[in-house]
């Protein structure tokens, strides 16, 4: 498909077609923080989960995503990138910078912001409960 060839890098395309860590943690899994951002009626909705260790590091991630290929690819790539990071670093992680590295079209930057918002919403629950 020409659009995939012209607009998406091989990495982004691979993560769109075969996203990593998709889904959600089983109910009752310890240390899981959940956050959401976006809305279907606006074309994009992300629900992101961070599993945080007692030491405050991101052990694993899950997400559910409704959106364009860029949104799906960014959820997948970010879920990999956050593993092992301290929660503060995860909160500060720039999905926008990741989108730029991937060469995503400028029109897709808002997808990165939605993923960031979902992560910060999840991380914010740790802060508020801690």
């Amino acid at each position, binding site marked *: *498909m020409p*659009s995939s060839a012209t607009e998406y890098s091989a990495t982004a395309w691979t993560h769109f*077609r075969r996203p990593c860590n998709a889904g959600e943690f089983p109910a009752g899994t310890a240390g899981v923080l959940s956050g959401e951002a976006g809305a279907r*009626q606006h074309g994009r909705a*992300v*629900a992101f989960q961070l599993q945080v260790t007692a030491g405050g590091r991101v052990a694993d991630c899950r997400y*559910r995503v*409704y959106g*364009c*290929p860029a949104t799906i690819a960014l959820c997948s790539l970010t879920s990999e990138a956050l593993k092992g990071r301290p929660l503060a670093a995860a909160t500060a992680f720039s999905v926008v910078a990741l989108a730029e590295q991937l060469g995503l079209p400028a029109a897709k930057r808002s997808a990165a912001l939605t993923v960031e918002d979902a992560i910060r919403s999840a991380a914010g629950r740790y802060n508020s409960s801690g």
Partner: protein
Amino acid sequence: MSHKVIYLDYAATTPVDPRVAEKMAGCLTCEGMFANPASAHAPGRAARGAVEQARSQVAALVGAEPGEIIFTSGATESDNLAIKGAMHFYKGKGRHLVTSRIEHKAVLDTCKQLERDGFEVTWLKPDADGLIQPSMVEQALRPDTVLVSIMHVNNEIGTLNDIAAIGRITRERGVLFHVDAAQSAGKLPIDLKTLLVDLMSFSGHKVYGPKGIGALYVRREPRVQLDPLIHGGGHEHGLRSGTLATHQIVGMGAAFDLARQELAQEAPQLRALRERLWQALHVAIPRALLNGHPSQRVCGILNVAFPGIEGESLLFACEALAVSSGSACTSADRQPSFVLRALGRDDQLAGSSIRFSIGRFSTAAEVDAAASIVSEEYHRLLDLAPTG
């Protein structure tokens, strides 16, 4: 098709039929009819003969007289010539025209330009099935209405307007009637001897002919007059100057001739394949919704909304298919299909709609494979999405 991709985008364009390509090739080189059809010498006369044969072939498909066919560069130019040409020629009579919100862009943008030029346009909204009812047209007519322009078949959803009934209304009221028939010519019978249509646009490349060639039917009795868009050597009765592109014209003629011969056999085949595809999709995805009237539609076009998933992702995930989306999501400004929005579909459904268009070279195996691919990718994306 010989490619891995399954081509189901025949409403966008068709491949040139090999039988057409062969005829076109005979008009290009020294051994063929390359000469200028306007030239008086023998090679020129031969080329002119080929052009006139093609004109007869185009006319024969739609029940017109050869002299009523004007060759253009495509349906877009035909629409421009018909609408601007009529409005400018008859501006002494009035400055009002009627069209619908779901016309092809070639009509919409032409009418918008006329608005900028001081003409008045009434934009009809289709009913929930995507049809422009004759009564809607009747109610929109005014004493100063010059022209009504309504498409025969909608290019996105395939719905079929009752141009016979609309023509009876416009003729009775002394208003000209233009029909964009780019999606209907060769797909269903058209008889301009009985239809009260004054101007009709055709495309070569939607009928297995080449791109870059089209035609406009201009009724002679009662006579319709137009201001030309292009001035020059006075070709095509002064309506479309420019050296005639013999190979393109011969290609369009051959394509329309094949369509005339094969329509009766081909249309039921396309309809059966379209129904096969819809049934397979509907069984696999019961939530899928048909866009447009269930039966008043052309044989080859199926437009389906897939609730619960995002349209661009579905389209891209189905990379093994060449189909069209109901939205232009790749642009910075998300613009769901204006046609589907006019039908009352919300942005999400309009954005998650796919147009499948089946054609001469489509097979049952391709249709079955397409349904499987869409179903698999739809359910994968649905599983990925948040609940609610």
